[in-house]
């Protein structure tokens, strides 16, 4: 492994260069999927959806819809019988025989206008036999619950997911380390707690949109607002029996992803329909309501925790049982359950651990990736029981955390050795910035103030071997074009890739372009834009591609000048020799090469650098004990401290000050890192106070922004402090790790702990809405 610590850090690394996409986005010039024009042949798709959470499909009559003028295609589940799924293949593009959630696609229609497609839906008759629905994951895991996927045992699944056929449990991840039962007997204090985290939705500004077209030779192109063009190519092609090379995905800018545009959701629908109408582009856009209840959701979680420590505050044991409300399909969710399992201790060093992380089928919307991938939900529980345990044992919370957090060299609950981490530094810095231990007076007599702190860790959750690749090419004027397959979803991935390429090559930042939009036909492979993995994984590929190109240039110049490569360097777009003090611009030579003296021929040729990265060291974990050599690639850690003010007359919470510190190994672009920390905190705050999919008997009660509230600019605290901590990653580019998801992970617990400090009450889970806080205060006698 490259030891990042000993490497020279180029000037551009750690420099807050402006985003390279900012001008086109701010001016409105940036192209999104819905902006692309397809001409007069464009067809519009609409979908008839299940009105029931759980039912058998008895019959479908599409004859009247097919006869409607303007309708070009009507498709059902029978047309596409193969299953699809990222990890567990348990989903159909259109429901086949059975519907499992309200909003599941049943019939697809393509017509010459969206209005006609809508009218066609009204003409379709579907007869159902309604079945008992499972709307609670804890109940769903019991033997009494009706089985939602009777064929679970037949589904294709990777070897690190453990379904239990004959039940609704599609993954059961276990850790058995030490002896918790014996250890609890040694504990001076034990806290037991159950926390419920409701489903939330991603609510990107840009709803899902996808357009697909099959040409007469059977080749398919998909244009989509997508975090995962390569995964979509692979999964959709396989399911529809198309060669991956005959399936092309073009992915322009994304107007917000947060995980909901990863994997495959609605993108398969226009592709499936397009295969029935060769030559016609088919466009499918979701309404905001569909966005709310038909797409990937952040799964609900019921987490039951028991944690104990000795009289000195040393953690001795934890038992953690998690019931993940996976929804109607857990194709993606099974791996959230796994991530929740292997990270189930939170960033604490605990010798005895018993974990059961259960992914449970329910008749709720389908769970998928959501910024944090299970960690916000898990830490909502962990962060609160640790706070309570510190209270129980009578220890200052900061001291308690510092005593118990994981350190480099610790053996984690899975048996993996922890790498160096700056978590203790993060704790000290947030405690300092929030003035921990100092009570500030409230702004009015009817208000109370409090402070809370919570920690987090998160590893990129993915298969063991997700790959990244990149290429680097040049134009005649020396400017650099970098090919990547990772997506710019607002996080700044393109800027950081360009910055890394410029730094590794030795050219000015403004010489670098990113080849876009992403296009699987030309862009290099990237697994998915998820898991906060791009800066680290794609960054490595970009850095290597740039270094490869640099080496080719230096070799060429060394030959032309008859010098030693070791004496040459590239500085500000020029090759320089420290020995002969000659220099030559990259212009022209990167395409045409260099002429030999006296017109005796040429050296070199078009430079093209290539780089790849794939972690090769992640091992499997034992099915019964969760033990293995290395569960994950690494952990990004951090801490958050909040000061809140609670209004005793309404229950409303104001965050006075929010401090975040995270260890991302190396901040390639500090401004972008600060923005991730701010944005992540706000999203965390939003899910802590406002957000909740109100599901009643499987039906969402608030599928619109009128009643699904998210934090707006007016809800953001006036004071937000973000702190960078850098403990370099051994295999990260210049030591970098990702930090995209992490800043929202500790927020629910930090807020809950601060509210507890202010008014002495806790809820059984978020959201900490004014009403829920007030009613809890009323019940506890804090107010009358």
């Amino acid at each position, binding site marked *: 492994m490259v030891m990042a610590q000993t490497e020279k850090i180029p000037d551009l690394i750690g420099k807050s260069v402006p985003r390279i996409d900012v001008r086109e986005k701010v001016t409105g010039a940036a192209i999104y999927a819905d902006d692309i024009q397809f001409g007069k042949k464009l067809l519009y798709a*609409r979908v008839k*959806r299940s009105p029931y959470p759980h039912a058998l499909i008895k019959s479908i009559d599409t004859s009247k819809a097919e006869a409607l003028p303007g309708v070009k295609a009507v498709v059902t589940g029978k047309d596409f019988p193969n299953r699809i799924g990222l990890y567990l293949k348990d989903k159909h593009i259109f429901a086949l025989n059975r519907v499992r959630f*309200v*909003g599941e696609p049943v019939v697809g229609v393509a017509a010459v206008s*969206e*209005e006609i497609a*809508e009218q066609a839906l009204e003409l379709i008759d579907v007869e159902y036999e309604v079945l008992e629905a499972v709307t609670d994951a804890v109940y769903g895991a019991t033997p009494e619950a009706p089985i939602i996927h009777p064929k679970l045992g037949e589904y294709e699944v990777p070897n690190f997911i453990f379904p239990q056929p004959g039940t609704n449990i599609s993954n059961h991840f276990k850790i058995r380390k030490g002896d918790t039962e014996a250890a609890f007997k040694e504990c001076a204090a034990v806290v037991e707690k159950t926390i419920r985290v409701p489903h939330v939705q991603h609510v990107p500004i840009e709803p899902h949109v996808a357009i697909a077209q099959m040409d007469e030779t059977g080749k398919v192109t998909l244009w989509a607002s997508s975090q995962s063009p390569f995964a979509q190519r692979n999964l959709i092609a396989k399911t529809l029996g198309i060669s991956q090379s005959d399936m092309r995905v073009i992915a322009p800018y994304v107007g917000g992803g947060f995980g909901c545009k990863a994997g495959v959701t609605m993108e398969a629908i226009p592709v499936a329909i397009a295969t029935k109408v060769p030559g016609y582009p088919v466009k499918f*856009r979701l*309404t905001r*309501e569909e966005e709310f*209840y038909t797409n990937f959701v952040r799964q609900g979680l019921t987490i039951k925790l028991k944690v104990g420590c000795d009289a000195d505050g040393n953690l001795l044991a934890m038992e953690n049982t998690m019931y993940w409300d996976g929804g109607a399909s857990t194709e993606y969710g099974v791996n959230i359950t796994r991530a929740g399992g292997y990270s189930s201790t939170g960033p604490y060093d605990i010798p005895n651990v018993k974990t059961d992380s259960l992914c449970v089928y329910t008749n709720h919307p389908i769970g998928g990736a959501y910024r944090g991938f299970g960690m916000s939900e898990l830490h909502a529980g962990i962060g609160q029981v640790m706070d309570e345990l510190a209270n129980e044992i009578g220890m200052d919370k900061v001291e308690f955390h510092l005593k118990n957090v994981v350190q480099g060299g610790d053996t984690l609950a899975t048996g993996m050795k922890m790498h160096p981490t700056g978590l203790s530094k993060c704790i000290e810095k947030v405690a300092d910035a929030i003035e921990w231990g100092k009570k500030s007076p409230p702004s009015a007599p009817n208000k109370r103030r409090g402070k809370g702190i919570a920690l987090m860790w998160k590893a990129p959750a993915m298969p063991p071997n997700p790959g990244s690749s990149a290429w680097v090419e040049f134009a005649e004027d020396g400017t650099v074009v970098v090919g990547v397959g990772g997506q710019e979803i607002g996080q700044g991935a393109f800027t950081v890739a360009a910055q890394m390429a410029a730094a590794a090559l030795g050219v000015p930042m403004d010489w670098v372009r990113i080849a876009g939009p992403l296009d699987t036909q030309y862009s290099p492979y990237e697994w998915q834009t998820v898991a906060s993995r791009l800066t680290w994984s794609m960054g490595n590929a970009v850095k290597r591609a740039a270094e490869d190109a640099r080496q080719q240039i230096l070799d060429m110049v060394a030959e032309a000048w008859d010098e030693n490569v070791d004496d040459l360097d590239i500085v500000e777009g020029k090759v320089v020799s420290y020995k002969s003090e000659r220099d030559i611009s990259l212009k022209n030579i990167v395409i045409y090469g260099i002429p030999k003296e006296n017109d005796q021929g040429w050296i070199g040729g078009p430079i093209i650098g290539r780089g790849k990265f794939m972690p090769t060291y992640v091992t499997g974990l034992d099915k019964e004990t969760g033990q293995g050599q290395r569960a994950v690639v690494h952990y990004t850690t951090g801490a958050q401290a909040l000061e809140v003010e609670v209004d005793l*007359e*309404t229950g*409303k919470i104001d965050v006075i000050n929010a401090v975040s510190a995270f260890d991302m190994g190396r901040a390639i672009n500090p401004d972008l890192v600060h923005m991730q920390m701010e944005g992540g905190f706000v999203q965390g705050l939003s899910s802590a*106070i*406002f957000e909740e999919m*109100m599901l009643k008997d499987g*039906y*969402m*009660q*608030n*599928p*619109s922004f*009128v*009643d699904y*509230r*998210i*934090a*707006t*600019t*007016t*809800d953001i605290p006036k004071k937000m402090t973000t702190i960078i901590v850098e403990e370099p990653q051994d295999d990260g580019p210049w030591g970098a790790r990702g930090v995209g998801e992490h800043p929202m992970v500790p927020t629910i617990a930090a807020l809950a702990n601060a509210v507890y400090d202010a008014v002495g009450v806790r809820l059984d889970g978020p959201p900490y*809405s*004014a*009403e829920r806080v*007030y*009613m809890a205060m*009323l019940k506890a006698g804090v107010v009358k």
Partner: protein
Amino acid sequence: MALNPTPGLPPFEYIKPASLAEASAFLAEHAGEARPFMGGTDTFVRMRDKAWHDKFVVDVKNLEGMRNITFDPQNGLTIGAAVNMNQVAASPFAQEHYPLLVEAARSVASYQLRSRATIVGNICNASPAGDTLGASILLGGVLHVYGVDGERDEPLSEFFHGPGKTNLKPGDIATAVHFPLPPADAVGRYIKLNRNNDGDLAIVGVTVLGYPDSATASGFRFKIALASVAPVPLIATAAEDILANSPITDDTITAAAQAAMDASTPISDTRGSAEYRKLMVRNLVKRAVSDVWGKLQG
């Protein structure tokens, strides 16, 4: 809340009459399938949600006088039906003489929506959550209506009958709302309890207007209107009486707040439970009356 609204608006015909008479005749002729149209902030949403099925949308916002806002030092303020809420909030006359109305208008939805939404539209929509309804009633507002039988005035105190139900009949077009001069030295306050700070509907809204009144035992008159806690904007008369009949003390205010809570009959919905709403009526009436009382004492 519709689970399956249409992607766009359902088809409708857009009618732009040249005069109030023409508009009124058309609306009367197409009773039940035509609707006068102002900013559209409710109309389009309801049509897309398939809650309203009008075939005709009758645009009356450009008819004569609809966009005028005028102040007469003797008679008061008249706001044309098509004057948007941002214009009301920015009016120097409204700011100087009717700050309560400005405060209420500024709490509606978001700035963007307030550049379309109107006070008269808010009134005609008759949502129990309407933020400007309380202020409009307490300030003695009168709606000018043009109907098939000619012009008439509708005092807002007797205008509302239920959610979306008012004295308006087919063929009626509200043309303006008029406010007489407020009582001397009046002080107002609108407290809107919402889930987050911008762009939200009221869980509970409390409007209070107080002024010196030699006819009462306390020497002051307090008027109180409540939003989102009854089918119509609720006037808390029992609370008003307590504040008129007893010297204004903390205990009197507490008793008035309790009376307001007892009078309210909210429902439970996604925004809040009935129980919480009632408690908030108590707490916020107390807060609003105390604020007003503090200002009245100078």
